[in-house]
C-alpha cells in the first residue's frame, strides 16, 4: 500500500504539535498559578449625585439673609445711602475702600468709621459696614464701576497678585447670622488646589468597610478656612447633601464648587453633629 504522507512529514508534524502543546500547557500552568483571571473594574459611583438641591424661592438673586439686611437698610433713611462706594482694594488680610461721603472722597481701611458706620470688610463688588450690631452692604457705584473696575480694582488685583504671588482675593464675611463666601475666593481655590492644602490639612477616615469621611488635621490661622468656623478634628460628613464617603464624591463636590450658590457642611465635632451654612456671593 502506498503511503499518502511521507512518514518523515508526519513525524515532523506530530513533533510540532507536541511542541506547541507543551508551550500551551506551560502558559496554562503560569496562568493558573500566577496570573489573575478576571478583570478589575471600578464600579460606577452613584453617590456623586446630590441627594437634594437647594432651591431659591426668592424672585431675584439676593439670598434670604441679605434681603433682611436690605430691608433694614431701607428703614435707616439716608444714613447709609450717603456713602457711595467708589473703589475697592481687597486683600486676604485687609480691605481698603474709597468712598464718597457728602461730596468728598475718603479712603477707609477695615475697622475705620464713617458717619457711625464701621467698615467690616469688602467683597468683589461691595463693602460691608456695621452699625448697632447690624450689617449694611454698599454696592460699588454703577456710575464709577466701569472706570474703577479698570483703573482701581483690576489694576490693584493684578498688582497684588504679582507682588504677593499667591495672595487670595475675596473673603469670608459675617453678615448677621449668615456667613458669606466671596465667589472669587471660591474660584481661586477651585483653580488652585495646592493652595487649599497650604491652609487646611485633610485626611481620610477609613474603617473595614471603606471611607467614612474626611478629618480636618489643621486649619491655618487667619486663613479663609478658619473663618468658615471649621476646626481641627472636625469630620466632614457631607457637603450640600452629598455624603462624602468616597474620593469620587469629594472630587465631584470640588469640580462643581464654582457653580453653587450655597454651601452646607455637615460635620461631626466630637459626638455632636453640626450643620454649617454659607452663602456664595
Amino acid at each position, binding site marked *: 500500500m502506498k503511503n499518502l504522507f511521507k512518514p518523515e512529514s508526519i513525524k515532523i508534524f506530530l513533533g510540532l504539535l507536541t511542541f506547541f502543546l507543551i*508551550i500551551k500547557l506551560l502558559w496554562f500552568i*503560569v496562568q493558573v498559578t500566577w496570573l*489573575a*483571571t478576571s*478583570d*478589575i473594574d471600578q464600579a460606577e*459611583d452613584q453617590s456623586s449625585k446630590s441627594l437634594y438641591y437647594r432651591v431659591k424661592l426668592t424672585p431675584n438673586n439676593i439670598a434670604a439673609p441679605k434681603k433682611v439686611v436690605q430691608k433694614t437698610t431701607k428703614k435707616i433713611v439716608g444714613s447709609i445711602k450717603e456713602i457711595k462706594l467708589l473703589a475697592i482694594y481687597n486683600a486676604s488680610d485687609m480691605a481698603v475702600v474709597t468712598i464718597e461721603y457728602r461730596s468728598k472722597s475718603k479712603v477707609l481701611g477695615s475697622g475705620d468709621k464713617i458717619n457711625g458706620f464701621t467698615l467690616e470688610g469688602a467683597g468683589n463688588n461691595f463693602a460691608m459696614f456695621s452699625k448697632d450690631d447690624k450689617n449694611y452692604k454698599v454696592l460699588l457705584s454703577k456710575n464709577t464701576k466701569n472706570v474703577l473696575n479698570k483703573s482701581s480694582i483690576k489694576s490693584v488685583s493684578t498688582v497684588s497678585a504679582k507682588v504677593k504671588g499667591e495672595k487670595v482675593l475675596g473673603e469670608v464675611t459675617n453678615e448677621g447670622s449668615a456667613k458669606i463666601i466671596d465667589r472669587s475666593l471660591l474660584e481661586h481655590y477651585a483653580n488652585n*488646589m495646592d493652595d487649599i492644602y497650604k491652609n487646611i490639612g485633610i485626611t481620610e477616615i477609613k474603617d473595614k468597610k471603606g471611607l467614612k469621611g474626611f478629618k480636618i488635621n489643621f486649619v491655618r490661622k487667619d486663613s479663609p478656612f478658619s473663618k468658615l468656623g471649621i476646626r481641627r478634628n472636625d469630620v466632614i460628613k457631607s457637603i450640600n447633601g452629598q455624603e462624602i464617603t468616597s474620593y*469620587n464624591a469629594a472630587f465631584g463636590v470640588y469640580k462643581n464648587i464654582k457653580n453653587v450658590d450655597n454651601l452646607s457642611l455637615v460635620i461631626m465635632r466630637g459626638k455632636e453633629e453640626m450643620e454649617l451654612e454659607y452663602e456664595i456671593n
Partner: protein
Amino acid sequence: MQMVKKSALIFLMLWFAILLFMPKAELYYTIEESLAKQDIKLNEKSIEEGIFSFTLKDVTVYVKGIALANIEELDFFTLLFYSSLELNNLKVDEALQTKVPAITKKASFTHSILLPFSISIDANGSFGAIDGKVNIMNKDLRIDLIEVGDISMIQPLLTKDEKGWFYEKSF
C-alpha cells in the same frame, strides 16, 4: 550547518509559540491587580487580542475612585525583543487641566533588547511634542520638549538650557 538551521528553526518556533499562546488578557488582569493595590483602576470598553498585540479601547483611568483621564486606545505590541506601548487621544479631566496638559494625541513608550536598560518616550499633544528616555539602570528620566505648545501649567517643573525646555527626574 544543518544543526544550526535546525536550532534556528526550533528557536523561531519557540518564539512564535510563546507569543501565540501568551495569555495576554490574563497578563493585563495581573497588571490591573497590581495597579489596584495603588488605588489605580482601568475601565475599558473592549479588549482585543492579536498574535503580537493587545489593544484596549476607550479606557477610563480611575485614581482612588476618581475618573481622572480617558484614553481612546491603548495598544501594547511585543516581539519580546522589541516592545511598545502606544496611547492614543489621552484626555485628562477638566479639573486637572490646570495641573497637566489637557490632551495628549499620541504617546509611545518603546523598549528594545539592543538597549535593555532604556525606555524611549515620544509624545505630542496640547503641550507640543516631547522626546525622552528613561534609564532604568541609573534610575533617571529626561524629557526634552522638541516643540513647545501650551506648557503654562507644567512650566514650573521644567528647566531651560540652550537646547530648550526639558524635564529631569531621578526615582
